[in-house]
Every structure is written in C-alpha cells, then in structure tokens.
C-alpha cells in the first residue's frame, strides 16, 4: 500500500522521487498513518477489555465509547510538570524514554502489512526485529540508573536481568519458524504460510501456529516477559518498587513510557501474528491478489487484537513471579523446550 503510494504520487508530481526519498516517505507515512492509530486502537481496546475483565467502568466520557481517552490522557500528561530529580544524571534521565520508544518504532519497521505494503523489505527481517527489540533494555537501564533513586535502580537492574534472560527463548522460539519457512524475510514467511499445505490440503495455507505451537507458546511467554507485564512485571512491580524504573518520571516522559508499553505490546503482537498466524493472509484468497494491499492491514490488525487480547488476558489474571523464579523458568524450562522444538523442526524439515 505504502510502496505503491510513491509510484502513484510520482507521475502526479511529475518528479522522480529518489530512492532515499521514497524510503523516508514510506517510513514517515507509515509511522504516522499506522502506528499512531494502531497504538491508539490497541490502547482503547485494551482499556475497555481491562475494564470488562476487572468489573470496573473504564473510559466512557471521552468521545464515543471512550475512544478518545488516549487523546485526553495525552492532554493531561502534557500539562503536567516535567520534573527531573536534583541528583539525577540529567542527560541519561531525559533520554531514556526516547530510547525505549525508538526500540518500539524500529520494531515496527520489519512488520509487513500486505504483499507490497511494508516499510522496509528486509531480507533479514526476523533478525532485525530480534536485534532492535533489545534496544529497550538500554533505555530501561538508563532510566533506572539516571533517576538516582533506590527503587528505580532495583527496577532497572531487575529489568536488565529479565530482558536478557528472555531474549534467548524468544529467539529460539522464532528459530523454529525460520527453519520451517527457510527464510528470514518476514514477508516471505507470510507467503510461505499462505502457500503452505497441511498434509496436501492447501485450502487455508499453513499458519505456523499449527506446526510451531510449542514455539508460539514459548514466544508468547517470552514477549510477556519482554513487555515487563504480569506475571513478569518485577521491574515495575508497583506494590514493591513503587513503579520501578518509572518512579521518578512525570509528565510527558512518563507518558512515553506508558504508551511505549502498550505500543510495544501491539508491535510484538504484530510480530507474533506475522510469524505464527499468517500475517496479512486470510484463507480462500490467493496471496498474490491485489486486494491484499488494502485488506492486509485490516486482517493483520484483527490478528494483532487477537494476540494482544491474549497477552493482556494473562496480564490481568496472574500474580507476579519472584525474580529468581522467573530466571529459573527461563533457563531451566523455556530454553530446553525451545531447543527441543528446534531439533524436532529440523528433523521433520529434512524428513518431509
């Protein structure tokens, strides 16, 4: 959709847009057109869902069905004073939320929305996504250290330990998909799922959740930990560490952390949808069909809502692990399972 935008625009403007111009147009247009509504939708959808689950009222006043709640919150946070603690490491403290947000934005670059609708068609898309998802650790460590608060420091250190520990099962879980698809390109993974067959029956393609269900489960648990959400929310554990690494933040910077959390949940759900649920593909419509450039983003959005709903369902149901229990789960349980999954996938790939 977006890539075709420049081809549509260039004859109208009668200007040959150079390659770098096309790329930046795609990126900018994509970010504005998709990420903000996506973040907003996920946010509002999750707020309403959370309210229904917890039997509280939720947003109702701001806009129809509370849909403008996000704008109201942004307005509220913008009016608040941006406080920097006197003893804080100023530059580190101020920069931390942006580093976290950059990680989210970069992550979205790798997600394809249709056969021709993507920001960047990377041949190493999965690799790129896994790499930039760890950038947020730096931001969180910066926030924890820069605040010069004991609670923030404990939260930051917990976050670092946790995020590093859960990178590994996440990558190993994705590896099964990569082996099965035979490519690191995310769009080609979608095509591989769309053109796949289940024992000779190619009607609905082969969404990898059917073959990689172990990988999907491990991936879901790992992204839950990456998002620092219950049951893995020790870095922000509000009953222990007040708000962990976010304790000292206020105003816009707190909002950036806050929205970053929800937006990252949406983006991770998008990656899970692409890798395991067939991305923008719907059954009974050939993946080469032109309609997908319009339909694709909507289909993907629906799948994102499904995965995000699952993620937040866990969030509102479970209590929190302790730090050592979390490490035990990662190293003794998830990683061996993911490794066995890779071995079995590899063997079956060779056999079939």
């Amino acid at each position, binding site marked *: 959709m977006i890539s075709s935008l420049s081809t549509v625009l260039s004859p109208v403007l009668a200007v040959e847009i150079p390659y770098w111009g096309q790329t930046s147009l795609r990126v900018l247009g994509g970010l504005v057109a998709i990420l903000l509504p996506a973040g907003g939708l996920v946010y509002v959808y999750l707020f309403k869902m959370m309210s229904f*689950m*917890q*039997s*509280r009222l939720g947003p109702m006043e701001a806009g129809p069905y509370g849909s403008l709640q996000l704008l109201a919150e942004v307005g509220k946070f913008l009016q608040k004073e941006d406080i920097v603690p006197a003893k804080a490491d100023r530059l580190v403290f101020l920069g931390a939320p942006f580093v976290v947000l950059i990680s989210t934005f970069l992550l979205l670059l790798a997600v394809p929305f249709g056969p021709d609708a993507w920001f960047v068609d990377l041949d190493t898309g999965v690799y790129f996504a896994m790499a930039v998802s760890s950038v947020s650790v730096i931001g969180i460590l910066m926030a924890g250290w820069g605040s010069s608060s*004991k*609670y923030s420091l*404990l939260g930051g250190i917990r976050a670092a330990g946790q995020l590093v520990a859960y990178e590994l099962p996440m990558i190993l879980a994705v590896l099964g998909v990569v082996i099965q698809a035979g490519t690191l390109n995310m769009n080609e993974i979608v095509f591989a799922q769309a053109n796949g067959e289940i024992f000779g029956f190619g009607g609905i393609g082969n969404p990898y959740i059917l073959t990689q269900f172990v990988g999907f489960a491990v991936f879901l648990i790992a992204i839950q930990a990456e998002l620092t959400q*219950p*049951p893995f*929310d*020790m870095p922000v*554990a*509000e*009953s*222990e*560490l*007040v708000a962990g690494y976010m304790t000292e933040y206020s105003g816009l910077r707190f909002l950036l952390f806050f929205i970053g959390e929800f937006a990252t949940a949406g983006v991770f759900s998008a990656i899970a949808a692409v890798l395991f649920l067939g991305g923008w593909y719907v059954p009974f419509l050939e993946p080469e069909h032109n309609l997908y450039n319009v339909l694709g983003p909507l289909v993907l959005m629906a799948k994102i809502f499904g995965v995000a709903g699952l993620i937040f369902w866990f969030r*509102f*149901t*479970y*209590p*929190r*692990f*302790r*730090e*050592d*229990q979390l490490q035990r789960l990662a190293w003794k349980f998830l990683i061996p399972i993911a490794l066995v999954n890779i071995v079995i996938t590899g063997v079956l790939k060779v056999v079939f």
Partner: protein
Amino acid sequence: MTATAGSEREQLAYIAAKAADSRVNVELETEGMTLNIGPQHPATHGTLRIVAKLDGEQVISADPVMGYMHRGYEKLTEVRTYPQVTTLINRIDWLGSFANEVPFILAAEKLMEVEAPPRAVWIRTILFEMSRIANNLLGLGDMAAQLGAVTPVFYAFRDREYVLNQVEAVTGGRFHPNFDRIGGLKDDIPAGWIASTKDSMIKMRQAADELESLVFGNEIFTTRTRGIGIIPAEVALEYGMSGSNLRGSGVDWDLRRDSPWGLAYDQADWKVWTHPDGDSYSRAWVRLQEMREGTYIVDQLLDSLPSGPVMAKVPRIIKVPEGEAWVETENPLGAMGYYIVSKGDLVPFRVKIRSASFNNIAIVPWVLKGVYVPDIISILASLYFILGDIDR
C-alpha cells in the same frame, strides 16, 4: 636447581595472584543498602515504615517503624463519655469497624453489671461476623494485589458491597456504624433484612469460591506464598500473635469459641480452621475459610434470632461504677481487648486498647530476616494489618 627456581617463580606468581585477588575482593565487596519502605509506599496502605537493610535484594534486617498515624485514642477516651467513645474506636480497624465497638461495650457492661437482651446479643454477633467477612475478603483481594494480580482486588471491592449494604441497612453507616450501645443496640433490624442478608451471604460464598479458584488455585500464587515467611507455632505464641495469623501457624486458639462471653457464638455450629504450615499461604487460606465459615454462622444466627427488645434498662446518663474490667474478643484481625479503669465517673479513668495488628507485626523483624524484597511485600500482605489498628 631449576626445579627450585621454577617453584620460587611459581611461588612469587602465586603470591602476586593472591594479592591481586584480595585487592579485587576488597573492591568488589558489596556494600549494604538501606531501603526505606514507606511511610509513603503503595504496599503499606497507610503510613507504616519499614527500614530494611539489604544486601542486593536480600534482607539483612528489617525494622518496622510505627507511629506515623498515632492518634492518641487511649488518651482521647479519657475526655469522652462512654457513649461517645464508640465513635472514636470505630476508627481503629476501619475495615471491621463494628467489631471494634463490641469489646469496649462488653467491658462497660461488665462493670455496670448490665446484660443486653438476647436479640441484641444475636444481632451484635451477626454484625460482628459480617464485619469479619468484609474485612477478610478485602484482605485477600489486597494480598493478591500485593502479589501483582490486579483483578482480585476489584472483585473484592465489588463483592464487599453486598455486606456493607446490609450493615448500612441496619446501622445507617457503611464504614463506621457507631451502633453498639451499653445495654444493647441503637435500633432493631429493618423489615426484610433477614431474607436480604441471607441472599448476600450466598453471594459472599460465591465470592469466596471465585477467590479460591482465581487466587488460591493459581500456581504462581502458590509458588510465591508456599514455604515463604514460615512462622512456627511456638514463635507465633512467643511474639503474641493472634487471630488468623496464629491459626495459620497451627495453633487452635479462637476467642469466639474459647471465651464467647457476651456474644452468641456458642449458639451456632461452626468450626475453627487451622493450618499446620505457618507460611504466607496458610495464613491467607485460614482467612478464606473463616470468611466462608462466617457466612454459615450468620445464616444460623439469623434462623435462631430470638424476639424481644434490643435494649436493656439502663440509666439515661451512664455512669460506670468504680472498678476495672478486661474484655477481649476475636476481631477480624485478631484478639482485641479493652481494659477499662473506672473511678465512677462519666468518663473512663483509663482505657488500655490491645489491638491485634500492633502485636501481629511485632514479628516482622524476625520473619523478614533473610528473605528477598518481593517476599517482604507478600509476607506483610499475608500478616494483614490495618494501619489504624497498629497506631491507634
């Protein structure tokens, strides 16, 4: 010769390595950190301060610092007449307010040698048990919230309303009924109250079941609480713990059964729940069972509610004769007692309040030694204190 030289060289190298090692160790020696948990902290739901000395995330020592919310109730009672005192002491354990009034009134009745009519005693016991149900429900929801599960606490607040509505229907106050009088009660129960209370008790049993499956059936909850914060029975007794915390350590001690003086507990068929483990889980589990048992007690007492007046004959101006009296009851948080010294005046000469939470958190330095920071919160939540009950 060469061997000696070699060994000498090795020896020197060994010494140098040792020296370097010890330098590194000196540099890497960790320094303890003092973490002030509170007085303003989300987990203390009030103003309790815990000074924790940490090594990494492990607690070396933890001391509770109390008194940030001290309101001087013992002193204030000395300048208030007996009927006025109930307004004050309502605010001690603010989640089980009615239960605070009962032991004081009973002690005053003991001094005056007045006996409340049976109907008043029955309604007192029912309201007493209802404040326990509301209190324990919120305590369990709050414990789940401290452990990171946000949802149960909302359910607890929602379901607690069923009890509070019933309390409000009788007393006119949701939180602070101020309903107990020397010689009986202010009013009788309204029409239709018995049936609606039975309905609400059914809802409370459903709430207990829901909580049991949502929280106690959760594996993360059990890993976070089982074997954490173990208090053996003898230690619990040494530190003067009482209530569900003591029964969670396996001590079969309940004032409702052991000294039911002034209340109608001996008229119902019920069970004292204990748990042998003494960990965080068992304390919470006992609280859940007691909440459920409380609904059965209320049901039975509603069935056997005697008729008659709710107020005995007492003089219009209450003067308590000279003497001293001590009455203790099993409140939601544990044993609560009042020692009243009267000089035959309109006001008490001296009132000593024994509140449950104050004695229950005396064990905090003992039980928190060596645990990790997240367990501080779960253990404190399982001890379930109310700040008003600590500081008075």
